[in-house]
């Protein structure tokens, strides 16, 4: 299986990038120290205050000291903020996606395997989750929890609680088709309980569609995190996140394009890597796709 994965060029590229991102997130303090910068120190001397606070110099103030330039308006080191931003962006998005998949798949399978009434009830619940306006609920939810709860975790939880509907819908649909397969009946005849059927027989069949979906859910969650941070209910300053940087970059779009470019690039690379990894995994997890015969 590992060998098959290693032969998949897309997967390898994706895995390398994804691992790189995670590594960057984990070693952010080290990397920042390596650059001799931290993400909080203001450098007012590097900004042109009369011009609204754009970095002095070309390319957003790129210099030997500030490898990727500085943040307009504050002069904080952009490299340090980007590597620290990975912690929140990757962390929250991955955690939220994980929770969403966990919740969605559980409810989806339960609805798919359950009887008429269980299915009807859970389906309405899914409808409810799907029709909740995420922004409103997130803002309201985040407003009522105490200030000192760990923010990124909370964000992940809120995003997940409001966003598992899609996964559940897909899981339910797939389960409904999978449950008619004879191998499910076979497992039942051998005396397997519903839980066991769900785990052993249904779940493996869900991996492919859910993986694909999750790979796309991830960037969506990054964007949601960005939106919430932008609306002031996300991570607290001075903690950076890519999404937040991207949203605040709108005003600097023309005055300092570099400020938009770097977080956008990282976001793109991360998404790319996750899609590639998901594609690779899906191919490998599906034994039929390994031996290509139609």
């Amino acid at each position, binding site marked *: 299986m590992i060998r098959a994965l290693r032969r998949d060029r897309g997967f390898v590229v994706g895995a390398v990038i994804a691992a790189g991102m995670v590594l960057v997130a984990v070693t952010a303090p080290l990397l920042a120290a390596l650059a001799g910068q931290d993400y909080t120190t203001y450098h007012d001397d590097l900004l042109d205050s009369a011009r609204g606070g754009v970095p002095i110099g070309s390319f957003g103030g790129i210099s030997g000291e500030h490898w990727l330039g500085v943040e307009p308006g504050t002069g904080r080191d952009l490299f340090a903020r980007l590597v620290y931003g990975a912690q929140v962006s990757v962390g929250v998005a991955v955690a939220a996606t994980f929770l969403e998949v966990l919740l969605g798949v559980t409810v989806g399978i339960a609805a798919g395997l359950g009887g008429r009434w269980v299915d009807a009830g859970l389906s309405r619940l899914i409808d409810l989750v799907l029709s909740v306006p995420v922004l409103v609920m997130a803002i309201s939810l985040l407003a009522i929890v105490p200030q000192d709860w760990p923010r990124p975790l909370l964000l992940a939880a809120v995003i997940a609680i409001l966003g598992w509907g899609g996964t559940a819908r897909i899981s339910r649909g797939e389960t409904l088709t999978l449950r008619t397969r004879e191998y499910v*009946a*076979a497992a039942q005849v051998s005396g397997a309980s519903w839980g066991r059927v769900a785990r052993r027989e249904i779940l493996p069949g869900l*991996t492919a569609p859910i993986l694909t979906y999750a790979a796309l859910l991830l960037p969506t969650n990054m964007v949601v995190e960005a939106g919430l941070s932008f609306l002031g209910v996300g991570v607290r300053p001075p903690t950076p996140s890519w999404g937040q940087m991207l949203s605040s970059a709108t005003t600097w779009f023309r005055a300092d394009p570099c400020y938009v470019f770097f977080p956008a690039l990282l976001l793109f690379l991360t998404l790319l890597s996750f899609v590639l990894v998901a594609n690779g995994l899906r191919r490998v997890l599906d034994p039929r796709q390994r031996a290509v015969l139609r």
Partner: protein
Amino acid sequence: MTLLQVDDLRISFGDKRAVDGLSFTLPAGGSLGVVGESGSGKSSLALALLGLGGEAAGRIDFDGTDLVTAGPERWRRIRGGQIAMVFQEPLTALSPFHTVGDQIAEVYRLHTGASRRAARARAVEVLAQVHIPDAARRAGAYPHEFSGGMRQRALIAMAIACRPRLIVADEPTTALDVTVQAQILDLLGEVRATTGAALLLISHDLGVVAGSTDSVIVMRRGRMVEQGPTDTVLVAPRADYTRALLDAVPKPGSRDYRPGEPLLRVRDVRKHFRQPRRGSLRQPPPIRAVDGVTLDVHAGETLGIVGESGTGKTTLARMMVGLVRPTAGTITFDGVDIARRRGRSVQMVFQDPLSALNPRRTVGESIADPLRLAGVRDPRPRVEELLERVGLDRGEYDRHPHQLSGGMRQRVGIARAIAPSPRLIVCDEPVSSLDVTTQAQVLALLEDLRRELGLSMVFVSHDLAVLRQIADRVAVLRDGAVVEIGPTAEVYEQPRHPYTRQLLAAVPVTDPAEARRLRALRTAGAG
């Protein structure tokens, strides 16, 4: 006059050679059977005749032109217009989004340039010709609204719509039950007689080609092993392989039948399925899949259950293992309600071995599952034993279902069924998706196991020949009810119910002369 002449045909898929050096001729209006086990290249040949499938080399001379080198325009005219194909799987072979009539009309218009109205009329005409009742109305139905036999008729109707000179039928009856199979084969013969088209009939079933073809080709692994008039080849085969094929055809078994006390008791069991409401608020009447069945399965016997498609065989079988809860009536095993016995003493072998095995798990894992549920800690050694017992390699443990052949898969299914040491095994058409040789092996295995482990068996099949070989007693099912039940020999030799007689008459036989006689009988009866 020769219509089709094939010379040294080779078909390959990339590196894989599917057909190697095949040569034969087919006269206009003639009929040729192609038989062989699964994977022998039969379908590849059929597709090559239409310029589809793998890369073909050699020569296919159709009506004076070489098809191997034909251009797209020529192909377009030949396909459907000159050579028409009838596919095996009638449900998937028709577009689910269009009505049957539309699909036939489309083909007709394409080749004749007829008006919409004329094409429509032709579609109704051919549908009527293949005996679709009320053809004018049914032409507006979607394929999924047709039964299997009707779909196959529709495909044949499509094939004859443009009056082709050659009809290629690739296993046209494999998915159908005996009576319908007989009807379709008769229909093909009738069509040939009325339209003068030649027929290339592909089947793994010797009985199918026996009654419907003049000459026959026997194929194995892409090569032709024997060729000649049907009468000669099937009666006095020269090749060993052909002989083996003939031997594998189920024969009436001589069985000593000593029934034990009743093990499984089915008492006035009914299963009604609610039908979805469509269009109106009124609840339509339920489907009575099983409607009042009473029977016993005795310890140590094999009870055969036979009937046409849709008569409730599967539903009954599933109720026997507790998968489906009866609407009414009781099923007891050893005096205990079956719903509470599940997972131990009653096991099941399913019809389609591929869909009965989880494609994402290794076969070993699938077999180990019931053992684990029975509390075995390390099931691997026991699973390997079981694999060997059903004639598989220990090494197959780690392979996935798609890596096995159909016969191997069914052996895995059997291994799984016997793993928890059951006392009764319910087999739902365990061999109907297998070709003759494999079928014979699996039947032998089941019989061995039954004797060795002292099992009781319920064996569901639509194939009377199979049941005659394996069953001690036979129950004939029709419309969810048992019309006749008794010892096998009795039912086969002195059928009391007319329906049983009808079934028996439809069984294909490998003796061409006998096959022709039966067919004549049938057509006379129908006419």
